[in-house]
């Protein structure tokens, strides 16, 4: 597992970098609007409205943005967690931990693709 991970480092790191970027640009707004302001009624409920969001997400560009915002930060998160784990002495279990984390990211990405294609 670890050997495979080492081979794939450049891609993973690329995904990580992209994920950090997209995550930093999109996620805070998403969290603020959909996660806090709308549910508490501080602003109107439009962001929670199916038609509105569906409209955004089904647009070709919307699909891409949603897909990117869903899939890439998964890799960023998985990668960072793996490194934190390493920083606390997890080298001997890096293969396992990294494997699980990246598997999560991979599954999430696949689900995101399926959803983004099929909506």
């Amino acid at each position, binding site marked *: 597992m670890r050997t495979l991970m080492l081979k794939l480092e*450049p891609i993973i790191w690329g995904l990580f970098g992209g994920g950090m970027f997209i995550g930093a640009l999109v996620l805070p707004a998403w969290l603020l609007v959909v996660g806090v302001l709308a549910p508490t009624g501080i602003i109107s409920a439009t962001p929670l409205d199916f038609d509105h969001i569906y409209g955004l997400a089904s647009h070709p560009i919307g699909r891409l943005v949603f897909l990117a915002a869903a899939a890439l930060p998964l890799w960023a998160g998985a990668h960072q967690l793996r490194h934190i784990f390493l920083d606390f002495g997890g080298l001997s279990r890096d293969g396992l931990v990294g494997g699980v984390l990246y598997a999560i990211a991979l599954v999430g990405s696949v689900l995101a693709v399926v959803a983004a294609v099929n909506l």
Partner: protein
Amino acid sequence: MAEKPTKTIVVTRFDPDVDEVPKTQEYTIPVEDDWKVLDALNYIKDEVDPSLSHRWSCRMAVCGSCGMTVNGEPKLTCKQSLADYGDRVEIAPLANFPVVRDLVVELEGFMDKFKKVKPWIVEAKEAAVVEGTNRQSHEELMDFKQFSMCINCMLCYSACPVVSNEPDFLGPAAIALGHRYNQDNRDHGDAERNEIFREDGGVFSCSYANECAEVCPKGVDPSGAIQQAKLNNVVDWAKGFVVPRGK
């Protein structure tokens, strides 16, 4: 005459023939206000306890021998003012290194890593025998100049959490040095070095803790070098897809 101010210097001592593990020893000494931390150690060595061992030479922040942990932080002791600390100053060997004696650490591990990155100009394969000098624009020089300023003082290694945990990690200074040559337009060794950078313990082991850059006394910014090297590797790797390797 007014009494000179004094400070208590707490020094880590270790003699492998006698001590199981390192211990500390305190020295209360008169100090001058323009002293560097190193001056206090030299005072102790000369006037109080000649059995204290520490490395130093240039006392002008350029030879890189005098790195130690001062009050928990890695410092170049000939550069660091003693006056920046209170009455008690703790001086220990650099973290993350095996300790040979007192404040002297084992450097051979670093020398191994240093050599691994091929820190020399690799000539182009078909290069003709040259006389004279290469041309290099100021901009080309600036592509790597910063990374050539490393004095091998090892502060960055002693600050990096990855170094504590991954024995194979090439580490900040060595990678910065390899990257320095990759960025030098006179060098043709990128491919070989990138290969090494991709191995276990290469550039991708760095978590970008950035502490290496924080502690570097020479402004080398090894963490920047490592991230740039990662980027180069990704580009390189992507190119490898388009143009298969093994030409």
